[in-house]
Structures are given as structure tokens and as C-alpha cells.
């Protein structure tokens, strides 16, 4: 087991990340082809579904493009800056990378919960949730600012002492792992796995618009954080996928910006500047009381 403690260079680690990422991508595309066949066999295939899937891949291109152009420099600069405050001196080995993945997953839980419970962050994350379908292509459905908010939740990891490259690799792994969760074709896995890890079943619940499934199962790799912090829900009733106010379009630009379009609409129609600000900060669906409430606030459970 010595290899767990051998020093890695950051270049080696990043090369492994690329390899793993490419591997997942290849598997995902193959799996998606299988899902298309399954849709056809079940007579559930439609051109709207095809359009939805094409839009998913387009939003990925748009989102990654925005990340590269707008956020990447800021991201790396911020991580590099905060590394000087490192509390611990941490070498780069598979063991410490593994530890960082676990902690990055914990920080992902909070960032994901933030994305669901803060109006301005929901405006970008709603894109991912807005498809009424659930297949591997949905894993690649991203919003315009999806690459922005994670930075603030990864700065603590750098302050703890993990190298920025290790933090980035850990974060990418947490995202990559989740691609294979976006499917209806895999039922519940053996209980020990379902207890510890995020699984397709847990993630279907997360994508559900059913009342009992809203704002649940935020985990990335591990579902234990949801069990620990009281946001877990077991898959029981069939999941209805999508968002509370359904999005009917498969136009990639309508889809990509609909969160901000709707947020703008809600801010505009809310009276009072304090309330307008609150719409940005409070959970989606919040309205000042008393009003003729159309979408009641969901309680933080």
C-alpha cells in the first residue's frame, strides 16, 4: 500500500484527472446511446426529447465557454491568493487527494444547497433541473453562472492547506462522478451503497418536482451529508422530473437564460426595494407577505 503515500507532482495528478474525466465522458456517451434505444423500445422517444438532449449538450458548451472566458482566471487567482493562509502543510499523495475529495464533496453539499435556497444562485442552477426528462444528457445541462459559485466554497479547502490544483481536481471528480447518476435505467443498488454513496435513485429524488422531493439529496459523491444534515429523502413514489413552474421550451437560449429571465420577472413584480433584494437572497418562490401568493415559500426542513 506504499503507493498511497508516494509524492505526486501536480502535473501527474492533473493527467490522471484528464484520463478519468475522458473515461467517464466516453462511458456517458455510450450509456446515453443505450438510453435512446430504451426510449425507442418503450415508445417514449419524441423529437421534443431529442431537442431537449441536443439543448443539454449546447448548454454545456455555452457554460464551459463562459467558465473559460470569464471565471477561470479569477478562480485560479483567488485560489492561489488564499493558499498563502494555509493552516496545514499538506503533501500531494493519493491519500491526501482522497481526503481532499471527501472534504470537497462536503463543500459541494453546501454549495449545492446554496444553489437551491438562494434566489440569485437558483437562477443559474434551475437550468440543470428544468428538463422534464432524465437521462445522461441531462448531466451536461448547465447554466450561465454554474462555474461561479463553487469558488467561494472551495476557498476554505485551500485555506486548510490543500494545493489549489488538488482542490480543482477533487472538485472536478465530484462533478464527474455525478454524470452517471442521471438515469432512470438503474434501480436501487445494494443497501450499503445506497447508505453511503449518492446513487441514481437518490439523484432522481433530487431532480423531482414532487412536493416530498423538493430540496432534498444535495450530495455529490456521498449521500451521508444529507443524512447528517437532515436533507435526505428516500425514493418511494415515482419521480416527476423538472421544476415547479414547468419550462416548455427546448430552445437552447431560452433554456440557458430562463432562470435569470424568471428572476428578473419576479424582482420586477415585487413591490419595495427591500423585498426586491430579498427575492435575490431568499429561496426561490419567496414572496413578501401578505400578498396573493402564487408560489408559497418552501420551508427549510
Amino acid at each position, binding site marked *: 500500500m506504499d503507493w498511497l503515500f*508516494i509524492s505526486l507532482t501536480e502535473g501527474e495528478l492533473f493527467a490522471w484527472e484528464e484520463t478519468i474525466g475522458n473515461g467517464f465522458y466516453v462511458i456517458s456517451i455510450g450509456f446515453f446511446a443505450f438510453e435512446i434505444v430504451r426510449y425507442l423500445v418503450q415508445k417514449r422517444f419524441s423529437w421534443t426529447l431529442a431537442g431537449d438532449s441536443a439543448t443539454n449538450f449546447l448548454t454545456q458548451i455555452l457554460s464551459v465557454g463562459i467558465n473559460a472566458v470569464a471565471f477561470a482566471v479569477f478562480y485560479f487567482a483567488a485560489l492561489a491568493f488564499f493558499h498563502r493562509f494555509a*493552516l*496545514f*502543510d499538506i503533501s500531494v499523495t493519493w491519500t491526501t487527494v482522497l481526503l*481532499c475529495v471527501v*472534504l470537497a464533496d*462536503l463543500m459541494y453539499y453546501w454549495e449545492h444547497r446554496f444553489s437551491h435556497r438562494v434566489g440569485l444562485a437558483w437562477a443559474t442552477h434551475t437550468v440543470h433541473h428544468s428538463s422534464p426528462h432524465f437521462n445522461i444528457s441531462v448531466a451536461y445541462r448547465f447554466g450561465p453562472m454554474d462555474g461561479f459559485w463553487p469558488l467561494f466554497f472551495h476557498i476554505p479547502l485551500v485555506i486548510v492547506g490543500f494545493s489549489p490544483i488538488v482542490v480543482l481536481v477533487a472538485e472536478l471528480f465530484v462533478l464527474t462522478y455525478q454524470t452517471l447518476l442521471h438515469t432512470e435505467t438503474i434501480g436501487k443498488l445494494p443497501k450499503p451503497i445506497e447508505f453511503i454513496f449518492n446513487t441514481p435513485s437518490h439523484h432522481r429524488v433530487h431532480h423531482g418536482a414532487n412536493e416530498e422531493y423538493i430540496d432534498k439529496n444535495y450530495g455529490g459523491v456521498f449521500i451521508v451529508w444529507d443524512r447528517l444534515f437532515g436533507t*435526505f429523502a428516500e425514493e418511494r413514489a415515482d419521480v416527476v422530473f423538472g421544476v415547479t413552474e414547468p419550462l416548455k421550451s427546448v430552445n437552447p437560449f431560452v433554456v440557458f437564460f430562463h432562470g435569470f429571465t424568471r428572476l428578473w420577472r419576479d424582482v420586477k413584480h415585487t413591490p419595495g426595494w427591500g423585498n426586491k433584494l430579498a427575492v435575490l437572497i431568499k429561496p426561490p418562490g419567496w414572496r413578501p407577505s401578505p400578498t396573493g401568493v402564487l408560489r408559497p415559500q418552501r420551508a427549510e426542513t
Partner: protein
Amino acid sequence: MRAISHLAGGIVVTVAFLLLGGFLASTAPAYSVAATTTLGPVDGTSPAVDRTPGTGLTVNLVGIQGNTGQLIVLVFEDRLAYEAYDDNQAVGIDVAPVGKASSQPVVFPALNDGPYAVAVFHDENGDFEFNMRGPEPLEGYGASGATTWYDVPTFEQAAIDGGSVNVQLFYPQ
């Protein structure tokens, strides 16, 4: 298991996990590639390993100063390569991060023949260059057979027959 449903509690638990994880990561050992067959970094003494013939070359680096940078160990069996510090011709290369101890063993399990000459550079700024100002070294240096700061042994003086050797690191004053 009762869940921690209050946000403040969640934040406290998260911070605790972060600090615990960072502490564990900082105490995990980290070996250089060539040192896989040893017991890891030692503190001031030679490793208590029985070096029977044919079990490679152990270079014990002693007198390491500071905690930054990396130690580049080059092993040569060719005089010209040694004199030029030509790493393309080295029979053994190791790059190891500097640990907390002032001694560090580096093992080359495959080097059983000899004679070998060993040169060591303490690359403090990580630029893989031995930084000098004119004739004055700016970084730490050592070689097998070198006994003083100014000693630059010839291949014959540096050569050892394998087994184990102590190499003292010398630093600019």
C-alpha cells in the same frame, strides 16, 4: 442517527470536518518514488535496514536545512556524465520533496554494481536549476566523498561501490 437540522450546527460540524481532514492530510507520510523499499523519512540516524549485497544503493542525505524545495539526487557511473552533472546520462535520478527531518534516505533498488558517484542539489526554489551567482552557489549541494564546503570530488574520489553512503549537504554561508 439524529440529523443536525439547524444551519449553524451544520456549519460548525463542517468546519470541524475541514480542520480534522486537513490535520490528517498533513500528518500522512509522503515518500519520494525511489524510497519505496525503505521505512520512510528518518530523523538523524541511518535507517536500520540490513543491506545485504545486491539490494541496491542507499543514499543517506544528512544535514538538510530548511523545509522548502526539493532534493535532486543524481547517481552516475560515468566520469564525464558526473563531471557535467548530465542528468540524461545518470543511472539514477530522484526528486524528493524536503521533509521535516534533517536526514532523508533515498534508495535506488536496482543499482547493484558500482562504482557510483552521487551528486545532490537542494533545489530550494523548485526551478530544477542549481542557482549560482557567478562562482558562488546559492543553493545547497553535496556529493559522495565531499568532506568540506569547497570540496568538489573527482569521480575517483566520489566513487563508492554500492550499498550505503552518507552524503552531507553543504549550504551557502
